[in-house]
């Protein structure tokens, strides 16, 4: 099997070991001839089997190949997410997965040569390494080639999130190859110099990078023993495990306690949403503004792979912990500002996909969201309808009128320049993009939930 022109995935061009391509909608990875020995060692050493068995590496099947060494068909990841969309614990779990892979590789005589956070994806709610070609034969005496990358992709952002401000994860969106260590060292509090791991892997590391950035001196005779290699991985693991962050006192932390829903109203809303999902029967649901995932779980319970987006890292953190505790494999909470959703970034803006490129989903939930976009972000309703019609096929949307206390709260500190924010205008503007299939007023409130289907072009 050979790739067709233009089918090569734009995120895999850097890897000399192989590349990812699509054919007839199916994702394949070609293993180049230059990577033959390492690939064969990966398979024959038992490392591949051990990693797949432990749930650390994406499984694949080998196919006959006319080009390159092999063509493999990896298990498909249903939704690709990126490190700047993960909450603290997701990034931490991805870091620990990467280290567990590196340790297992060493036990099998191989070394993990790439420690990019982009090589980790969430499958069934758990982080898994997706880059099968990230291994090379371990050569005694050589340091860990991926050390710098691991520190930039994991240690630095986790340290900044834990010890400075959790929102600094967004630096990963700017620095696609991880946060430069000199920048991390400058941003971190001075006290972090007295933490052994952060002193070594961030502060000292940044100093060493600057010291030797442009030096051309003879190669040294010094070598790194296997014990030192294991010590390095162990130290990184202790450093990562020692970094913690607990959400407290954030914007949405007590949202459900502060809404104007009664218990009966919330239950009715769940029933309406469940009934609409029963009609649309989605395989994928994007819950936009999911908070801690109360209604996402209605979709997940209906069997849909549910991506629960929220702007608040604390809400996403809580949601992720709940997913792990309940072992909810078909939920993926992610941090997303819908007024500034993830763009396409990297080389030619194509290495990492924008949010809309990862859609459309079958059904989007936009519950208690439209007033934030229309009033909080000054987005005219036709634009909100345009945006939503670009990312979903069917839409379950809640209209929150101006008289609602949540909207009143938004209007308390701004002039009401939204004369068109009324139910009739909402229905008219959304009808240009969607067919309104049904609507239901919610018990105990002035809100209405609609079921809509995107108009065919």
């Amino acid at each position, binding site marked *: 099997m050979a790739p067709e022109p233009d089918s090569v995935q734009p995120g895999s061009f850097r890897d000399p070991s192989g590349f990812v391509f699509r054919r007839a909608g199916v994702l394949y990875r070609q293993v180049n001839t230059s990577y033959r020995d390492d690939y064969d060692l990966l398979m024959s050493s038992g490392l591949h089997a051990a990693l797949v068995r432990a749930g650390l590496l994406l499984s694949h099947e080998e196919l006959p190949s006319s080009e390159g060494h092999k063509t493999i068909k990896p298990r498909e990841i249903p939704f690709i997410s990126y490190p700047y969309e993960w909450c603290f614990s997701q990034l931490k779990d991805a870091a620990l997965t990467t280290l567990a892979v590196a340790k297992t590789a060493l036990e099998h005589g191989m070394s993990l040569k790439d420690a990019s956070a982009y090589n980790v994806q969430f499958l069934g709610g758990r982080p898994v390494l997706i880059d099968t070609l990230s291994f090379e034969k371990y050569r005694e005496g050589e*340091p*860990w*080639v991926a*050390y*710098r990358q691991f*520190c930039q992709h994991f240690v630095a952002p986790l340290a900044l999130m834990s010890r400075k401000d959790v929102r600094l994860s967004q630096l990963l969106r700017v620095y696609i190859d991880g946060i430069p260590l000199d920048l991390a060292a400058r941003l971190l509090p001075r006290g972090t110099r*007295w933490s*052994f791991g952060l*002193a*070594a892997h961030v502060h*000292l*590391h940044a*100093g*060493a*990078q*600057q*010291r*030797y*950035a*442009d*030096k*051309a*001196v*003879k*190669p*040294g005779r*010094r*070598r*790194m*023993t296997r*014990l*030192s*290699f*294991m*010590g*390095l991985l*162990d*130290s990184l693991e202790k450093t990562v495990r020692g970094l913690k962050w607990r959400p407290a006192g954030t914007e949405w932390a007590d949202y459900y306690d502060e809404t104007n829903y009664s218990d009966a109203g919330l239950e009715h809303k769940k029933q309406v949403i469940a009934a609409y999902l029963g009609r649309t029967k989605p395989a994928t649901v994007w819950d936009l503004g999911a908070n801690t995932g109360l209604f996402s779980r209605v979709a997940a319970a209906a069997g849909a792979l549910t991506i629960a987006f929220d702007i608040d890292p604390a809400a996403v953190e809580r949601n992720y912990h709940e997913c792990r505790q309940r072992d909810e494999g078909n939920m993926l909470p992610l941090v997303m500002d819908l007024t500034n959703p993830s763009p396409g970034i990297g080389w030619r803006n194509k290495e990492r996909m924008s949010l809309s490129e990862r859609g459309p989903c079958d059904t989007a939930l936009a519950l208690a969201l439209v007033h934030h976009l229309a009033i909080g972000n000054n987005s005219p309703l036709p634009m909100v309808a345009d945006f939503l019609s670009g990312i979903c096929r069917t839409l379950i949307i809640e209209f929150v009128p101006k008289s609602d206390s949540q909207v009143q709260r938004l209007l308390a500190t701004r002039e009401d320049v939204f004369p068109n924010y009324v139910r009739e205008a909402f229905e008219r503007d959304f009808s240009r993009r969607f067919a309104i299939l049904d609507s239901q007023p919610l018990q105990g409130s002035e809100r209405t939930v609609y079921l809509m289907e995107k108009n065919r072009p």
Partner: protein
Amino acid sequence: MISLVFLWLFISALLQPAYGYLDPGTGSYILQLLIGGLLGGIFALGVFWKKVVTFVKRTFSPRKGDGGTGT
């Protein structure tokens, strides 16, 4: 704390030119060589300590059947 002091002693060692390459990863490479011995030593001590703790626990913990006096 002792290991942290050792670590910072390496900083002064690092300030002395040793080897280098025209490569952005040179500093990362050299840092590993410099701190690798220390980290390897800490790791080995940790493994040894775990073995000691396991040995002590096994030796001094009551075995199954011991102390079962019945009623």
